[in-house]
């Protein structure tokens, strides 16, 4: 059994003696006997490091690591530079906690301040927070920011990622808010529906850009409608796309949120990821979670500190803007380091390569009989095609070649495939994919 306890039995005895206790059990005199666990935990005995490693390596060995990935749908494989991994694994960043004591936490604080700045730059917004759990909860939290007693109806586009939509539904259910899902038409938000249904109770309209199907929507038009109805607008944006695409601010959003995983965070079977949130000046004090601000110390030296804490649960308790306490700080640091490493040119290059490769792939895939594009709309790095063969069989075949194929859609587009291409996919890989698809049709 691995023990991390740095006191020997002899020392522990000394401590017990000092406390005047006969045994360890005496430490728990306050606990009624009848509720104490009898006979110990029914779990295996402790193991040595080597054994635990072997067991966990065996588990890892049961997963398949795909060499080639053409699947996104909310989790994207991008290249993670070595420096990013090195920085993110620095021991003190990893083992510190929330920087409650700013005098010895300037490192973490400054890293968040830098992250906030970069998120503002990406989204065009004025203020960003230190992170929330992920893209889905960022959407949910953004909605909460917009709701007040007068306006408490929520509009969300059906083209939002299904997991995000489900999360938003749960949050709305919990808070007792009415949620209207704006239907999708030809792969995009039904603007007419939105126009017709927004009303004086409508608090907010939220949509995703590019949307779940990869399509770059006409967000500006949607947000204009929302604004005219007196509702706030939230854009959930892919941060890589934001490097080249019209920013949420430029589209007229009041709040920008998104999933930061593409910014240097590994796929990790879905987490930990990084929810980011940014907003226009007026909404700053409605932001949930930690925010770092710049100030001075008593000697006039620039310094950083957690600020605007009057919004937060530890001060406001039931009146707080959110319950969030622990967030995804280390992921935020990772993303900031990633953005610094790529720089403006590099980040745009990532985006442009995604764009170029997806369009190259789309051209060749969609020219295969049966693999037509489902939607006739501009896209970023994901797009939907039909599939002339059994999707599961196709995926199995690709798997044999070490390829994770596109995501088989469910619901209205069952039988279609959502493909994703990033800078990680070489032309060679894409050509190989097209060749395999072609073979599959001929068989």
């Amino acid at each position: 059994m691995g023990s991390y306890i740095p006191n020997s039995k002899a020392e522990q005895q000394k401590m017990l003696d000092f406390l005047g206790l006969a045994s360890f059990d005496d430490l728990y005199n306050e606990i009624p006997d009848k509720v104490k666990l009898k006979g110990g935990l029914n779990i295996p005995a402790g193991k040595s490091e080597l054994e635990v490693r072997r067991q966990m390596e065996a588990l890892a060995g049961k997963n398949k690591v795909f060499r080639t990935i053409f699947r996104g749908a909310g989790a994207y494989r991008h290249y993670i530079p070595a420096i990013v991994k090195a920085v993110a694994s620095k021991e003190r960043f990893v083992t510190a906690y929330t920087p409650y004591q700013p005098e010895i936490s300037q490192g973490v604080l400054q890293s968040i301040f830098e992250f906030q700045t970069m998120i503002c730059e990406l989204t065009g917004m004025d203020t960003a927070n230190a992170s929330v759990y992920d893209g889905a909860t960022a959407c949910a939290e953004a909605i909460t920011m917009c709701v007040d007693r007068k306006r408490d109806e929520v509009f969300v586009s059906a083209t939002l990622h299904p997991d995000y939509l489900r999360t938003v539904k749960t949050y709305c259910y919990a808070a007792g808010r009415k949620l209207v899902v704006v239907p999708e038409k030809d792969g995009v938000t039904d603007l007419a529906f939105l126009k017709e249904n927004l009303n004086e109770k409508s608090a907010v309209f939220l949509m995703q850009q590019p949307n779940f199907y990869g399509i770059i929507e006409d967000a500006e038009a949607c947000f204009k409608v929302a604004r005219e109805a007196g509702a706030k607008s939230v854009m959930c944006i892919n941060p890589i796309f934001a490097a080249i695409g019209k920013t949420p601010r430029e589209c007229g959003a009041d709040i920008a949120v998104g999933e930061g995983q593409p910014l240097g965070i590994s796929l990790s079977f879905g987490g930990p990821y990084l929810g980011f949130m940014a907003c226009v000046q007026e909404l700053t004090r409605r932001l949930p979670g930690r925010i770092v601000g710049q100030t001075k110390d008593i000697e006039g030296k620039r310094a950083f500190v957690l600020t605007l804490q009057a919004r937060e649960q530890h001060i406001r308790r039931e009146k707080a803007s959110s319950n969030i306490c622990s967030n995804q700080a280390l992921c935020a640091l990772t993303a900031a380091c990633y953005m610094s490493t790529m720089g403006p040119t590099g980040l745009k290059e990532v985006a442009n390569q995604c764009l170029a490769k997806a369009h190259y792939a789309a051209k060749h895939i969609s020219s295969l009989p049966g693999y037509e594009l489902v939607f006739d709309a501009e896209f970023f790095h994901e797009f939907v095609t039909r599939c002339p063969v059994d999707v599961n069989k196709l995926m199995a075949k690709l798997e044999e070649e070490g390829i994770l194929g596109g995501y088989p859609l469910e619901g209205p587009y069952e039988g279609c495939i959502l493909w994703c291409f990033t800078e990680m996919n070489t032309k060679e890989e894409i050509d190989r994919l097209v060749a395999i698809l072609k073979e599959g049709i001929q068989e």
Partner: protein
Amino acid sequence: MKLIFERSTPGLSCEILPPCDVEAYELKAEQQRGQELRLPEVTEGEISRHYTELESQTFGVNSGYYPLGSCTMKYNPKINEEIAGLPGFADIHPLQPAHTVQGCLEALRLAEKLLCEITGMDYMTFQPAAGAHGEFTGLVLIKKYHESRGDKKRTKIIVPDTAHGTNPASATMAGFTTVSISSGQDGLVDLEALKAAVGEDTAGLMLTNPNTLGLFEKNIVEIAEIVHQAGGLLYYDGANLNPVMGIVRPGDTGFDIVHLNLHKTFSTPHGGGGPGSGPVGCKAFLAKFLPVPRVEEKDGEFYFSGDYENTIGSMKAFYGNFLVVLKALAYILTLGREGIPEAAKSAVLNANYMMKKLEDLYQVAYPGRCMHEFVLTAEPLKKKTGVSALDIAKGLLDNGMHPPTVYFPLIVHEALMVEPTDTESKQSIDEAVKVYRELYEKACTDPEALHQAPVKTAVRRLDEVTAARNPILRYNFD
């Protein structure tokens, strides 16, 4: 320290990607970003130095004594990090077909089984990304439960005044009204106050046990009875499970739902504020409400369930902070049957030892046996010398130690909440005690020195008022 933006030089960059190997594509003008993108332009060496400097101004568990009450800053074993970094975990897409992620699914199931045994629960979801997220999840379960029984009048959640701020905040998010009940003289839930508070509108009680004063709620069985009899459910805030794991199980003391803080009790690192993991366990009768997807097992094959009819939905995308769960799993496997209670006992012994070494100088807010932490009040000291809990905290900084949590719980004035944890040695506690005692002396002889502290840190006390009044929340490029 320079900001990374101040290290930027136009034209520099790291060369990360090869040139694009397919023809370029351009977006329509109206889809393109107009605004300039002002990210740092730096070489790798510059980035490296920057973060080395930032790290040097960050205090972590490895930097020294870190008894931050309620946060369980225990040592984070390195093997757990290595395991979480294995490509067989870190490089797995969350939407891979089930047969290609059997290892991930098995790990989640195994973690569920182990943690159910440790908490006395029947089922567990790993979706919640942190403790507060777990609370929220649990409260939505409570809501759904009552609703499913057609019981719509239960709109109130009872929360002791010692509770962590996330408890009432979570209640609000779940659409409940918080009823705060004050603690008794002994720092425990006042049974009479509880009885007075419960009623037909009681949805449930949230309780932390041991509570945030470090005291075990010894009337827990009575408390559970009172709440259950009123028709409410019992929610366990598991942030303080560390001192009692393997000794007493929330499930055995009447709790219906628990959340755990894997980043506290189960040694996963705190990451400067996160990511954590706040799995929620429940008794069988609540299982059908749990968030989806859930991992199921059939003939040794693991798979994700589809939507359950009664599920509350999802708490986030995918399945939770998976890599964090892995680290906790490795820790539990390492400690095992005997190691889990051994760690608990070490935490309690360390806390009581340190408390006894200090109680003649600093006043213990609620004397007696503490569990993993104890709360001192600097109020008498402040009256006598003008030196506050904050001053003491800042004095500790000059001695290379992280201060305890200060000014929490709110019911203790000038609170200093000390949680040594199980992974601290007698030697380091003795050294800390020495410093705490010296600071007391200092407070008596030279209070001004403590008002001035810290002096040895990278920056001195900050102007937090201006920070909040005229917030500067991002770098100004102009």
